[in-house]
């Protein structure tokens, strides 16, 4: 809905490249197809990468029977889940239960509308690109909550509560981290941000990158923040009662969100599609995969945090650091607008190290036993 109308507004603006054959509608159709194919392929690829990569890190092999190197494993999974019986629990709120996966899944795909695969190669070069991303991403939390509520299952409910709590808290440091990038780039359009990155912003905004990475992982519930489907506590969290097609949508959503966050990180901090020699889209895909691999890596290694620690981390650690980062960035831009980036890099790294040390010393995250 928003997508549509935003697009309409674009139709009247002049951001559209004039040399597209057939004009706007061709562009729209082409990129919709590209996005869906790209997102779904990457989702499949990510499932494969995660299972194989995690397998190798755990000294085993991972799926290798379905297709060459097990590449068809995600396809088999998808086919199988789609054909499984779809059960709606007797006590569930049927409409909410039915709608939840759709509400959760659609935003994950919609994010890709503003992600550039090359110079200007995107569905819609919105001026508010990054704001759009953040806004859309927050909708899927509602889908998750609907799932938790609609299943009338205590585990689902607990999982959904945790999910909501974490989304609400982590949105703030994430937005603040993005604000730093926006300040440096001077635009909210993702394409402009990429164009502004003569050196990747991970160097100029190291703290921002860290905050965004942690916050992003928490928002899409990747380990170590996968509290809402923490299988050792809540069996399967919010989708405990889902089977068949609807479960498939949640399953895809999880990875689609991971793709989305990886793509955003690659765009904001790693220079997006820019890079020497290889074609832009390949650079982009490689960077996305790289970011996702880091996620897999941390997931393999780290234990899960507790819910109060998760919240405390957001409010006591990430939030003040993000504020300070924003202020420092603003000062740097105002005071030395022409400063050489190569001088700022070590300064910012030093600031990051200092801040983390300071906060580690000063603040206690989470609390212990509650007297009952």
């Amino acid at each position, binding site marked *: 809905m928003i997508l549509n109308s935003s697009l309409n507004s674009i139709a009247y603006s002049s951001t559209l490249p004039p040399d597209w054959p057939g004009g706007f509608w061709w562009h729209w159709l082409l990129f919709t197809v590209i996005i869906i194919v790209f997102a779904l392929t990457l989702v499949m690829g990510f499932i494969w990468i995660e299972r194989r990569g995690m397998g190798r890190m755990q000294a085993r092999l991972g799926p290798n029977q379905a297709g060459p190197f097990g590449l068809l494993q995600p396809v088999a999974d998808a086919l199988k889940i789609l054909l499984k019986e779809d059960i709606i629990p007797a006590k569930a*709120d049927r409409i909410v239960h039915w709608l939840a996966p759709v509400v959760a899944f659609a935003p994950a795909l919609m994010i890709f509308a503003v992600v550039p695969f090359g110079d200007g190669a995107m569905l819609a070069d919105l001026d508010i690109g990054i704001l759009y991303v953040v806004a859309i991403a927050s909708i899927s939390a509602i889908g998750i909550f609907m799932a938790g509520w609609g299943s009338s299952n205590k585990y689902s409910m607990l999982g959904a509560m945790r999910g909501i709590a974490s989304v609400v808290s982590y949105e703030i440091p994430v937005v603040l981290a993005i604000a730093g990038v926006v300040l440096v780039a001077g635009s909210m359009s993702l394409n402009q941000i990429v164009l502004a990155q003569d050196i990747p912003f991970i160097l100029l905004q190291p703290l921002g990158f860290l905050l965004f990475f942690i916050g992003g992982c928490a928002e899409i519930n990747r380990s170590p923040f996968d509290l809402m489907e923490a299988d050792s506590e809540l069996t399967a969290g919010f989708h405990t009662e889902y089977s068949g097609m609807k479960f498939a949508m949640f399953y895809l959503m999880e990875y689609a969100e991971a793709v989305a966050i990886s793509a955003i990180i690659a765009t904001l901090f790693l220079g997006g599609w820019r890079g020497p020699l290889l074609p832009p889209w390949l650079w982009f895909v490689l960077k996305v995969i790289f970011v996702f691999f880091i996620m897999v890596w941390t997931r393999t290694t780290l234990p899960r945090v507790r819910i109060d620690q998760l919240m405390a981390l957001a409010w006591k650690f990430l939030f003040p650091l993000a504020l300070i980062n924003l202020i420092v960035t603003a000062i740097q831009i105002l005071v030395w607008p022409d400063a050489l980036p190569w001088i700022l890099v070590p300064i910012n790294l030093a600031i990051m190290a200092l801040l983390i040390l300071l906060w580690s010393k000063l603040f206690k995250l989470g609390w212990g036993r509650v007297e009952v």
Partner: protein
Amino acid sequence: MGLVVAFWILAVVGILGALGVVLLRNIFRASLCLVLCFLAVAGIYATLSADFLAGVQVLVYVGAIAVLIILAIMLTREVERGSLSNRLRIPAFLVAVLFLGVVSFAILNSLWSVSALPPLEPTTAALANRLFGEGGFILAVEIAAVLLLAAILGAIVLVREK
């Protein structure tokens, strides 16, 4: 043409959502209708070329406020039955009619000056200039910030363990 179609769709959805909020017994579903309504309003903003406002609408209202409302509903008992009718039914109806009257009066009697200028592109920079630029609303923004800070501090003081 596209804009008109989009507007009508959004308007109908928005009103249906709003009606759902009022009429549905199940509070949880009502809050979902509220989300729908918010989204439709955001859509209308987008059709009016106020894309920044649309983004913020979704981010703040859907992403934060609606979520908080839902969280509050979690703590309510007997969500399916919702709020039952009580003695305040008739006064409430009167107040609603009164309010409707006031709003209709205001709409019908204001002089709507439609600008002939094309919408500003991009809106973000214009907004920023309007708020923080020369002759802008910088003082109001600052006051709002201070107010919010005071509110946050108050909340912390209130919930602090004795």
